[in-house]
């Protein structure tokens, strides 16, 4: 459709190049809002945590602090980027880019509404997993290339706990794959059609919890932020970064928060589907486009992220390892077996 | 295909073994810490059960299952039976040795059983993938067992060497297999043989043959790819050496038989010359270098290299008589080898490894019965007439003479005569030298029992070889 619309401008190109240009534009359409969302997510976080602490939060820049994110961004952009003399320069600057890339490219397969997806690929779920796996490198490399003991410790912790939680996440996705019978994210959402009880959060309740908590761990968010651990190792893997390089880490962290929320929404909370499906309210809310429901779900999950941060104290390293290896992985494996039984007995509307 | 339509019966022994190994794995940690007696007993019972199952299932037909991936022919059945007996004997004989060295743990038996599973899969596979997986399952268990005495530098070094070179060999083998697959478009060995027989002939196929021969020969430890063998056998705890030296050789013979004979039989004239070269080298190096050894364990290792060269003679004859002779030789070798390394276990005690040749001196004064067992074993290894080893050598030599390789047979006899020298030297030490250590032998009934059985079988099969000959011949439809 967009190709036809743009045909006066790019019509002279060969079809494969037209495809390339159109998708480049679509990529921008996805990435720019994410960047803006990240900016306001930081503000939302400070506000929400502020109110949870019974204080106001940023309120100086703009009306009720609305322009605070821009102030932060400009501050970071104009600060000097300091390269430690003993750092491995190439990897030092490669690391934040890697993290950011991993946080952004996974959006290619996220369906925002029925048919609103950049790449409607069959192996979408696997793709998301693989990209998540590649994202570990940014943190590890940042920790190593800084050539600082705190950074290295942060990188090490991160490597260890990401591998553990990735396994749990992978198993949780296997659960989703079993119910949906497809790796395509749009198909997964369509499989949840019906009502709020048809969404996969119900049959996969343990998987849902494991996935979301592992997602919190994967994004290095509190209470799993031992790789930053400012009380012990200053700021962990990004202790040596400043200015825009540091801003990239922040950008990546918040972008991956949004990503994890989006994935959770797609896989367990019915993606773009209305929560009133199958009830008398369905026609009342029929005018609301799917993307709004999707964004609402993402916002709710992001709120939970922030809520976690305001509520829980940081886990210790061994506690994180225990939770990952001894609780989450066994729970997910067990639930896969339970799902097998559900399948056999065709429990509920899901199987 | 559904699960119900799968015929699981042909792989019943494998399934039983896998289930039992997992059961032992689960039971072992919950047992009292004094020693894995329960695991040991369960392992032995498992092997006995497998023996019975395989014996019941055995018949003269070739049974294919899992879409022709698994083949149970008489050769496979016989080899499996031999493997069970050998491994059970190794488990029984090594118990005391392991306990004295603080490594008598359930994992030893578990890994041993998983190794058996790998051997069984290798033995009855008709599929490159299955063959490779079986081989790796076996090898992985063997690597771990080699390093089992993990605080011992020598054992760790041995395991490291074994692992690195074993991985290299696997790599070469896999490369050969992938070329074979690339050329023939099939992983099924019988189908590969059909394609090759239909006239498929290219440089790539020849390269595949070379790589597969090198890989298989590497895994068997045949000269010139034998360098790892002495270090590994010497460095590993003797109980593990026993395991390594006996049953896996049967699986290795199966590997060669499946790959070269079943899969690339039509390429006989491509691989036969290669096998002739490596067999000659192996017999020569094994028997000559063994003379120079001062360590009895190392001497036996070189003797292994020599014996494996002889086994290959049977394979390269390319006739069913030859294959039967190779199988016969392998069985004889495995039994002799358990006896040979068993002598080291006999002389060893807490904190003392009897690995030097000098430790053998005057065994006759210390225990005449064991000295006689030793004499029988050495005579058999040397191939002195009317012992088990003699008939094995004779059968192999007959088979290559049968295909007109007179000169090769002559060469083999010469190396065997050279080999006889150091076997007889060891016998001389036992009977005519004064013991350096006159303390009585402490070994318990397990060790003595297995050794006496091993020695007795040298005599029994030496005097009445016909039964086993008929069995091995029957395995190849003769």
């Amino acid at each position: 459709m967009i190709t036809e619309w743009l045909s006066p401008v790019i019509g002279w190109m060969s079809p494969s190049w037209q495809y390339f240009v159109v998708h480049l534009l679509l990529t921008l359409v996805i990435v720019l809002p994410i960047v803006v969302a990240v900016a306001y997510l930081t503000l939302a976080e400070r506000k929400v945590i502020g109110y949870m602490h019974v204080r106001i939060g940023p309120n100086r820049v703009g009306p009720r602090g609305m322009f605070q994110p821009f102030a932060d961004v400009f501050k970071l952009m104009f600060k000097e980027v300091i390269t430690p003399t003993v750092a491995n320069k190439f990897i030092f600057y490669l690391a934040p880019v890697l993290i950011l890339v991993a946080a952004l490219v996974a959006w290619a397969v996220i369906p925002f509404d029925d048919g609103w997806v950049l790449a409607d690929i069959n192996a979408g779920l696997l793709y998301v997993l693989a990209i998540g796996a590649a994202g570990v490198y940014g943190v590890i490399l940042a920790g190593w290339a800084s050539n600082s003991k705190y950074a290295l410790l942060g990188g090490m912790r991160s490597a260890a706990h990401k591998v553990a939680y990735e396994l749990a996440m992978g198993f949780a996705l296997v659960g989703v794959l079993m119910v949906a019978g497809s790796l395509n994210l749009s198909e997964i959402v369509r499989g949840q059609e019906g009502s709020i009880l048809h969404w996969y959060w119900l049959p996969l309740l343990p998987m849902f919890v494991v996935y979301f908590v592992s997602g919190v761990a994967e994004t290095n968010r509190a209470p799993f932020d031992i790789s930053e651990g400012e009380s012990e190792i200053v700021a962990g893997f990004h202790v040596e970064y400043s200015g825009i390089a540091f801003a990239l880490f922040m950008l990546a962290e918040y972008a991956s928060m949004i990503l994890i929320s989006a994935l959770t929404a797609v896989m367990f909370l019915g993606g773009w589907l209305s929560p009133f499906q199958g009830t008398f309210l369905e026609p009342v809310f029929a005018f609301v486009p799917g993307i709004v429901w999707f964004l609402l779900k993402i916002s709710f999950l992001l709120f939970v992220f922030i809520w976690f941060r305001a509520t829980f104290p940081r886990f210790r390293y061994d506690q994180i390892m225990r939770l990952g290896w001894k609780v989450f992985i066994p729970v997910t494996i067990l639930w896969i077996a339970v799902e097998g039984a559900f399948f056999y007995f065709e429990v509920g509307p899901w199987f | 295909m559904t699960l119900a339509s799968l015929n699981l019966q042909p792989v019943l022994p494998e399934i039983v073994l896998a289930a039992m190994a997992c059961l032992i794995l689960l039971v072992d940690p919950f047992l009292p810490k004094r020693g894995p007696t329960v695991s040991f007993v369960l392992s032995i019972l498992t092997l006995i059960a497998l023996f019975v199952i395989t014996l019941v299932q055995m018949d003269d037909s070739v049974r294919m299952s899992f879409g022709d991936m698994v083949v149970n022919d008489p050769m496979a059945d016989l080899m499996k039976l031999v493997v069970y007996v050998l491994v059970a004997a190794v488990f029984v004989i090594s118990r005391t040795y392991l306990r004295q060295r603080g490594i008598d743990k359930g994992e030893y038996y578990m890994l041993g059983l998983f190794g058996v599973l790998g051997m069984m899969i290798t033995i009855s596979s008709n599929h490159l993938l299955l063959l490779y997986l079986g081989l790796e399952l076996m090898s992985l268990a063997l690597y771990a067992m080699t390093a089992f005495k993990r605080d011992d530098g020598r054992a760790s070094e041995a395991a490291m060497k074994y692992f690195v070179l074993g991985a290299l060999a696997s790599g070469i083998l896999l490369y050969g297999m992938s070329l074979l697959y690339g050329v023939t478009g099939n992983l099924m060995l019988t189908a590969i043989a059909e394609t090759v027989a239909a006239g498929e002939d290219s440089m790539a196929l020849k390269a595949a043959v070379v790589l597969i021969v090198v890989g298989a020969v590497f895994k068997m430890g045949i000269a010139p790819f034998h360098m790892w063998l002495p270090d590994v056998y010497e460095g590993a705890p003797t109980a593990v050496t026993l395991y390594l030296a006996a049953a896996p050789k049967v699986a290795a013979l199966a590997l060669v038989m499946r790959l070269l004979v079943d899969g690339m039989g039509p390429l006989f004239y491509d691989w036969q010359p290669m096998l002739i070269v490596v067999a000659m080298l192996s017999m020569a190096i094994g028997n000559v270098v063994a003379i120079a050894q001062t360590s009895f364990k190392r001497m036996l290792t070189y003797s292994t290299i020599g014996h494996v060269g002889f086994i290959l003679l049977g394979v390269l004859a390319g006739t069913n008589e030859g294959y039967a002779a190779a199988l016969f030789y392998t069985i004889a070798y495995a039994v002799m080898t358990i006896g040979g390394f068993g002598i080291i276990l006999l002389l060893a005690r807490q904190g003392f490894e009897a690995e030097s040749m000098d430790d053998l001196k005057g065994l006759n004064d210390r225990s005449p019965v064991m000295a006689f067992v030793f004499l029988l074993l050495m005579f058999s290894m040397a191939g002195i007439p009317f012992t088990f080893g003699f008939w094995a050598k004779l059968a192999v030599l007959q088979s290559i003479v049968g295909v007109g390789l007179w000169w090769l047979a002559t060469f083999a006899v010469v190396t065997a005569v050279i080999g006889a020298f150091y076997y007889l030297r060891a016998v001389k030490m036992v009977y005519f030298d004064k013991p350096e250590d006159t303390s009585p032998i402490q070994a318990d009934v397990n060790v003595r029992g297995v050794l006496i059985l091993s020695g007795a079988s040298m005599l029994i099969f030496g005097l009445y070889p016909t039964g086993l000959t008929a069995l091995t011949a029957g395995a190849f439809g003769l």
Partner: protein
Amino acid sequence: MSLYQILFYVFASVAVLAAIRVVTVKNPVHAALYLVLTFFSTALIWILMEAEFLGIVLLLVYVGAVMVLFLFVVMMLDVNIAPLREGFIRNLPVGVFVALVMIIELALILGPASFGLDIYPSPEPAPADAGNTLAIGQVLYTKFVYPFEIAAFILLVAIVAAIALAHRRRPGVHYQDIDAQVRVRAEDRVRIAELDADKTRRGDVAGDSKANQDKETS
């Protein structure tokens, strides 16, 4: 040249160059990273060849897990490479000779003469909606179920071996029993003592605090 071919040559040359760098760079961490790059390019080539499942799994397993652990170990090690390089010059001629012989032989064997398009024509491209995840799953659990299970046993043996060789019970080390910690209830730790404000009843108060001390020391 079509886009497909351009992509293929880009990925293939990156893979080969990175593979060469794996063995030539001095720093082991860099070597590990080049290996990651090699895996990555190989995965992309596989995806180009319509083997998207294999490509993504390569990324997931090797890039995502195996190499992370590799890096983890390599970063911890302070590998002194000087001793590793001893004898490099001495062995170089032999090594180069053997490598050249092998390269030439393999080139002769694996060249277009044996595996060219005229001998093995390229297969029909799969339709756009074909996914090989399902196809692989179907044969893996039916036709190849036996090898598949055996592969699982290989992994099991690897776990048993690793634990048997690496796990040791050190006596005298205190571990936290987190399960016990989690199970703890307030009643186990805190006792609410009813204290009388009346100072004349000292004896009772002293008795309480003593009891509390006992509790703490136990």
